């Protein structure tokens, strides 16, 4: 009886601390965005204000970086889908020499730390005259989406039962019809998750974009670094809330699929 009570208390304590650990920083930051004066050690602001919001939303620079982020992310996602989805299908459905090796190699590209990579990549980009260009930034952000756009859809395609495809073919459907009516709809949730994760990866990408894009193309995350250093904390807080909105909306859209367990399957080599 006492043991049960102790276990319940322990669970409640863990839940509270865990909730504080995860959500606390976000709530704290959100409060900051609306705070006028806030003395230590009060747990809530002393005065509330919207002036930081008007400051951020009025600022041309900050506004343009938000817009730019919202332009790059969809472009990168679509380009990534065009490049990677056929490959994902090939990885899922066909056996060919080097299949596993290429899959792992794609993943291995993430293992080289980005900073070190960007130093050399700058050399490549300078030679190809891609520095400071729209295409250059697209390529840099694209690199961060390759693994998502190949592995996850490949797992999604793999999980479509071949028997269904064969049944459709036996019923007389041409290969493209089979793909469009059977394979793709069943693989769509996995592909959607991949697209959203890619969108967010591009949206979130800071260092590469800063290196290649500055000073012509400065996106939200790059601006964030500068804000943290040069502006009052409340401005950074407002910007953070703004930057978090697309993420929250998008992941909320696919939350069901992400939490269903497909994500884990997507990262196992087959």
């Amino acid at each position: 009886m006492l043991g049960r009570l102790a276990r319940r208390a322990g669970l409640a304590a863990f839940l509270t601390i865990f909730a504080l650990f995860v959500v606390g920083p976000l709530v704290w930051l959100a409060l900051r965005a609306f705070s006028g004066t806030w003395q230590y050690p009060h747990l809530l602001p002393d005065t509330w204000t919207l002036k930081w919001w008007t400051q951020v939303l009025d600022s041309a620079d900050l506004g343009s970086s938000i817009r730019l982020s919202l332009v790059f992310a969809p472009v990168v996602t679509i380009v990534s889908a065009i490049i990677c989805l056929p490959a994902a299908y090939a990885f899922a459905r066909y056996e060919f020499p080097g299949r596993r090796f290429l899959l792992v190699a794609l993943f291995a590209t993430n293992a080289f730390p980005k900073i070190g990579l960007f130093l050399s990549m700058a050399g490549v980009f300078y030679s190809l005259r891609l520095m400071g260009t729209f295409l250059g930034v697209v390529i840099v952000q694209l690199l961060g989406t390759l693994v998502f756009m190949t592995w996850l859809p490949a797992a999604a395609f793999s999980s479509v039962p071949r028997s269904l495809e064969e049944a459709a073919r036996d019923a007389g459907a041409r290969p493209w019809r089979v793909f469009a009516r059977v394979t793709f709809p069943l693989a769509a949730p996995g592909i959607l998750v991949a697209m959203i994760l890619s969108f967010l990866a591009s949206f979130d990408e800071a260092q590469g974009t800063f290196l290649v894009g500055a000073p012509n193309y400065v996106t939200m995350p790059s601006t964030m670094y500068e804000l943290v250093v040069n502006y009052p904390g409340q401005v950074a807080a407002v910007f953070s809330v703004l930057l978090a909105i697309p993420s929250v909306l998008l992941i909320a859209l696919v939350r069901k699929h992400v939490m269903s367990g497909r994500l884990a399957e997507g990262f196992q080599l087959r």
Partner: protein
Amino acid sequence: MTRAHRLRALVMASPPVLVAAAFIGMPVVSAVMFTLGYSGGFNSILADIGQHEHLVTGAGGTLGAYRDVLGDPLFRQSLWATVLVTAAATAVVLVLSWGIALYLRLAGGRIGKILAGLAVVPMFIPVVIASYAILEFYSPNGFLRSLFAALGWSNAPVYGYTMVGVTFGQIWVSLPFGVLMMTSGLNAVPDALLEAARDAGATPARAVRAVLVPMAKVPTTITATFTAIGVIGSYTVPYLIGPSAPNMLGPLMTDTFESFNQPQQAEVMAVAIFLISAVIGAFYVRANLRGAKEGKSK
């Protein structure tokens, strides 16, 4: 499949590989060559602007840059800090992921859903924002200290700009993937096996140890390796939350290039991180290949 089919499949699979080869593979090879002293081709600009460089003309590289870096106490401190933070963060993420996944698997219910839902929240938030939020949370006038001050302890520790804070940040950022991986990994173990163990008289703890742990080896390995690789090469979290020095290797690399103007030494550090990541990645590949083999033999 016929040979023609196989070739066609290879061609179909090639675009992302070619993009990666061109824009990651080539720079990586270039970077490694640069660390060994080759200043031609893509490295020429870096070679021009850098200081304290060890360059060669013609064949036969030099290990001068490596000697510089490995002999630098700042690098060794940073390497140590990186390894510690990575190990600590990975361990905590594993424990939390297993704990939450286990609770969901064995008890479920509303609390389980709340735990899993909370654990996935960091996925919604860009890393830049998360790092800043965590820094503020543990800063001298942040929530932690304010809470303790309100409760009577006016000198609670500050974790902003410390490696502890960085570790908190790394755990925070890595948690969703771990929890998702372990929940799906544990869910894949059939109920029948657990029930059989219980019928045979095993306590819940024994059932976990004897059934779940072995069967969830692959997801556990994936969680550990992906988390470790992510933490070890990270930049944003240690840059925003950590001290100026010693910090993890990511910020040190950038400093070495931007402040000290030593791109060659910075690349040596990148190679060091890559090698460690490759070793960790090898565990992942081995676990997967073994898992696939076991799957086939069933």
